[in-house]
């Protein structure tokens, strides 16, 4: 009973964040790699490039990055298009989504928020 109580308490504490950011974490930025990628595109909003080059910029393996990029496309954070024979990714132009990304990245400046974000990502991985 006590364990269940403390779990509930932890969940309530960790859920104590702006609803739109909680939803963003649970449904869009639901992995550490996606977190990296969202930060990268926030800092480089005009970047359009292939998965290979984005992996290089992010210092990650392209095999890991590619799937995560496609999931961010599915989540409406990134867009994917073909330029010639190249498949490239870029941050969506949608103002609302860019604003949400900005809010998320700004919130990450706060350690408390980061701890909560990590909690939700790890929970989502189970």
């Amino acid at each position, binding site marked *: 009973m006590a364990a269940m109580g403390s779990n509930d308490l932890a969940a309530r504490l960790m859920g104590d964040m702006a609803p739109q950011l909680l939803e963003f974490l649970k449904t869009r930025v639901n992995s550490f790699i996606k977190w990296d990628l969202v930060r990268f595109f926030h800092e*480089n909003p*005009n970047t359009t490039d292939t998965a290979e080059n984005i992996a290089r*910029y992010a210092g990650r393996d392209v095999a890991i990055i590619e799937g995560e990029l496609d999931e961010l496309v599915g989540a409406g954070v990134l867009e994917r298009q073909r*330029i010639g024979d190249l498949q490239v990714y870029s941050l969506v132009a949608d103002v609302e989504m860019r604003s949400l990304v900005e809010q998320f990245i700004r919130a990450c400046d706060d350690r408390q928020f980061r701890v909560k974000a990590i909690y939700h990502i790890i929970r989502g991985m189970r």
Partner: protein
Amino acid sequence: MERVKTGIKGLDDMLAGGFLAETANLVEGAPGTGKTTLGMQFIYNGITQFNEPGLIMTFEEFPQQYYRDAETFGWDFRGLEQADKLRVIMTSPEVGKSDLERVGGRIEAMAREIGARRILVDSLSHFERLSDDPVVLRGVLFGFINALKREGLTSVLTRESLALIGENSSAEEEIAFVADSYLMLRYVEIESAIRKALLVLKLRGSDHAKDIRQFEVTPSGIEVRSKFEGREGIMSGSPHRMAESFIEAFVRR
């Protein structure tokens, strides 16, 4: 003939008033000579002095690095982006080139969105990974440069020189033929100190200064100063006094 002033002290004088509009201008030099600084200053001055918005296309340095470097000179690149006067675009040579080749690409859209008239491409050296064949590479660069001109942009294109001091290898000269102008930045050793030299080797369609001038990177940017007096062999990196060369040539046998 319309000139695009750099606004860099001493440089427009060397360029007989500035670059020609919608031309591609190569700035080549060793690491640390000031190529990127010159390009950033060209963009910054374009926006703040001549009301000409600009783009920076980078293939390696992150935009954060440009913001930080610009701040050291008192240039607020972030503010200029927020004011829709500047866009810093990080991409790769293959994607940048392909994007410019298509109708309505992102770079074209960005240029039109802010009314860009200038662009810094940093650096052309990264195109070399697209082909080992110099003929193919020249064609790639030619197409890329033409795309920039098509958008009405006057460009500064940086290129890395492998030689810290002294002459380039002949392999690097292909790009010089494609560009409309060619500025060389060099380190020069004089009396155990390193100075910097700038030479306008080529300015297609215009007269230009033929002398080699000293320049410095000051807290407010690059300033081109007077020419090197009384010395020869500046571009070799190890100049000597003219009197010495006379003695070498005519006295010592």
